[in-house]
């Protein structure tokens, strides 16, 4: 691997990161699709399964800009304080999942389909691989 000799600490960091990533990829039982976001800021507390948001499914249908620009959803898993009240009010997921653009909130289990208790995080992300080979990232830490 080519790395900058002028900045050895960075090269070392990069090497460590990649090694970690390889390790994580090899040992984890989770094989989630790249970019799948588990959202569990409120679900478990409320007795529901966590929500799984599949980025790939939405990218086939909408450009990033629709949600991250027009709907104001921040690039931060757990950073948007999305809850059912806001969704029913037509914000966030509710801008489309209203029975108009897409199926409505009545189909609870299509979203609330995560394994019980999973923490909020972006699956297969660099951060996940660097920090949570055993998926120990605290869900509440992602809340602002």
């Amino acid at each position: 691997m080519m790395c900058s000799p002028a900045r050895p600490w960075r090269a070392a960091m990069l090497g460590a990161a990649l090694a970690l990533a390889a390790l994580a990829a090899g040992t984890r039982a989770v094989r989630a699709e790249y970019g799948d976001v588990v959202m569990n800021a409120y679900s478990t507390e409320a007795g529901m399964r966590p929500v799984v948001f599949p980025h790939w499914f939405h990218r086939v249908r909408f450009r990033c800009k629709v949600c991250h620009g027009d709907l104001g959803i921040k690039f931060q898993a757990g950073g948007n304080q999305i809850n059912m009240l806001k969704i029913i009010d037509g914000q966030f997921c509710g801008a489309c999942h209203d029975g108009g653009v897409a199926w409505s909130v009545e189909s609870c289990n299509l979203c609330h389909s995560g394994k019980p208790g999973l923490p909020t995080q972006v699956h297969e992300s660099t951060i996940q691989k660097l920090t949570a080979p055993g998926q120990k990232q605290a869900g509440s830490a992602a809340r602002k």
Partner: protein
Amino acid sequence: MRTTSLTTKLLSLAALGVMAGPLQAQEGRQVYEQKCAVCHAAGLAGAPRPGNAADWGPRLRAGKASLYRNAIQGTMRGMPPKGGNPDLPEAAVRAAVDFMTATVAAASKPAARPEVARKPAAQTAPAASTAPVRQAVPPAAAPVAAPAIAAPEAAAVAAPAPVQVASASLALARPEPGSGAAAANAFNRLLRPPGKRNLPPAEDGIHDPAVDGTLQLQPPLAAFGAMPRSNAGNRVDWVKALAEGKIAPRWERDKADAAAVVMDLNIVREVKGSMPDVVYPHKQHTEWLDCSNCHPAIFVPQKGANQMSMAAILLGQGCGACHGRVAFPVSECRLCHSKKKDGVAAGSAAPQAEAHR
């Protein structure tokens, strides 16, 4: 969250770098030349050009107050708040707006670009270039879909399709990932046995197979089948899939035919050491994203003004806000580090610039 406070620190660092020199004068023209000309002089992405009656006419009808407000708060269509200079006093922004609109009434030919508008652009751009060099793409040629903003009526008549057609001819110079999941890739250590990729929800370890919803969800491979493959991430090449029309993701939530506001402007970031330089392509990004997704929260819109490093990217800063999360992962070094040191673009820079003439 830790990454967030890091972002703030990095951003304020970057901001300090840009804002270090105190504003020499608050006078409108100077503010314009220093902070606004980079976009407004050439009409980048539909930014109204100073003194251009056609650009400003409809906007002026909304009133000066609305212009001031939009200049200070920014707009969804590409005007960053205060032009990406959060420390600029509001009075200075207003003065710059006054300067840009002052000559509108006097301009005789609506389409003519006043000389005053062009000069500052030529002056500001080189001034900012400390290390990185921009590819020779004149800003005037950049905004593919600019008319859609400047003249909504005209855009409504012309079918808003051509943007994607243009990109289809820009097949990117990069090794074919092979026909299927079996494509071998020497430098990617994150390779997984083919049978363990793109698993259906019930087997992916995060969906609960005991829930009826899980079984109703579309398995990724059912959607990816017809899409060009890649070696990492979702293992589909999203850029190619879009360019080849394999997918047609909407640009507007509820309109099937709205076209993206695409801007073709490459930024080259020189990298010390042996790694090839980074070519940041606005084109592929603006196919998916709005200017305001990056400017100014993630990047100040000024070449060289932002601190970038692999360490930060791995931590989710800068390019890492998306790459390594949803856009292709950091393991794909060559997609970013695409320009050989000898000046030959290993990526797609040169053909792109031509395709848009």
